């Protein structure tokens, strides 16, 4: 009996629709978020993440409506975020039906935001999302959807973020994102060693073997993926059966 490793499908949205693309270019429609949420809820997802990658103020009411529609389909936890910079924005996302919110750019600009959010909603509701890229012999945190370098060491930032109040780290490898070449196990393991909270690995998901690697070598508590699930390249049930057969504690469904 032990805490199961989580498999988390991620819906990147433009506020209203699930989109796919690299660095905000060539975005193409990948479906209705509520319909995908309903599917993953039944297929055995352990949690769902829905992000507003446009994160423009104009689209925010649309995104909140999307959260409401997605939450209505779920009997599993929901994490939502994209451009959250204030307590009020965080509250709106949680009130719309999310259990946890992600913060990224605004927390780097003002790390005290993590403390304020944790005091208001509890650490368990505050997920620090970090987009990291290999630069020399370390990983650097990037902001604004991975377009702006910060010069900040991603591992040190994860550690500081947890001290400030983050209850979970969502670490995305920009080097691996969209490549389907496996998770960045070295990055994930470095983050895992640096923090006491659960770590969600993101970027590079492909075969069941890549999930096994990130749980064993990367010490991830959860693994996140988007297109391999949206495009039905990998089924959730088959993935979990594979992991269970290889000694990983997972929640089997159906």
């Amino acid at each position: 009996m032990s805490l199961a490793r989580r498999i988390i499908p991620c819906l990147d949205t433009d506020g209203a629709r699930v989109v796919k693309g690299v660095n905000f270019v060539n975005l193409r429609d990948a479906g209705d978020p509520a319909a995908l949420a309903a599917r993953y809820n039944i297929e055995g997802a352990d949690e769902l993440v829905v992000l507003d990658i446009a994160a423009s103020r104009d689209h925010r009411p649309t995104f909140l409506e999307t959260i409401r529609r997605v939450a209505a389909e779920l009997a599993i936890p929901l994490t939502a975020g994209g451009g959250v910079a204030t307590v009020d924005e965080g509250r709106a996302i949680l009130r719309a039906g999310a259990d946890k919110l992600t913060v990224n750019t605004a927390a780097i600009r003002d790390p005290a935001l993590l403390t304020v959010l944790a005091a208001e909603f509890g650490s368990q509701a505050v997920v620090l999302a970090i987009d990291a890229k290999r630069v020399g012999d370390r990983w650097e945190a990037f902001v604004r959807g991975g377009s702006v370098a910060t010069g900040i060491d991603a591992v040190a930032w994860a550690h500081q973020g947890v001290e400030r109040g983050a209850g979970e780290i969502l670490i995305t490898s920009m080097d691996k994102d969209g490549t389907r070449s496996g998770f960045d196990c070295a990055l994930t393991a470095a983050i895992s060693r640096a923090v006491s909270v659960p770590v969600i690995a993101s970027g590079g998901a492909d075969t069941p073997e890549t999930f096994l690697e990130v749980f064993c070598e990367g010490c991830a508590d959860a693994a996140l993926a988007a297109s391999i699930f949206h495009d039905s390249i990998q089924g959730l049930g088959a993935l979990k059966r594979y992991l269970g057969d290889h000694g990983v504690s997972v929640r089997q469904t159906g």
Partner: protein
Amino acid sequence: MNVGLIEYGAGNLPSVERALARLGVESLRASSPDALKGCDALILPGVGHFGALMRSLGERSLVEPLQRVVSSGTPLLGICLGLQAMFTSSDEAPGDAGLSIFSQKVSALPPADRLPHMGWNQLRRVRPSKLLEGVPPDSYFYFAHSYAALDAGDAGVAYCDHCAPFVAILEHGNVFATQFHPEKSGPVGARILTNFLQQASLPLPGPQAAGREADENR
């Protein structure tokens, strides 16, 4: 049957509402002492901070009325922080008194493993449980917390192990509580809610020992 969700600003109230709606059960939000009295069953949802929850209940003058309706036999289900609120106090807010339905206290989980305890875990059943009727023994439930009741005497019917053994399900007369979130625990969570509502629809057996404990503690 009137199922009341105790409203004090808890973030997960709509999630519980939706979970009940999926079962075909319409609930109402109870935010005043009078509203509590009209309910056949009550659910105390909760996420966040022990002190904030108790202060919110206090500001709405709900603490004593809640203790009273529970000691008169109304079935109550506490969820997550709602379970913790049933104890006398918590390490999370040393100065704030809980509902004191149970005489023990809530502790910070020792940092022997990753905290918060976040995700799906299994239960260890130690006593017969009404909430777990029909639930397969290896089922997983969704947890998200850093504090827990390490002991609840005979009321602790199922435990979970993360950092330390802690109470996952409490049952004592008309008082029920789960440290996990049934509303977020898929089909088995729905079964837990159904089992609770079934308790609520049974003829009331009269004042319960759990209620008397609350009276003694006041």
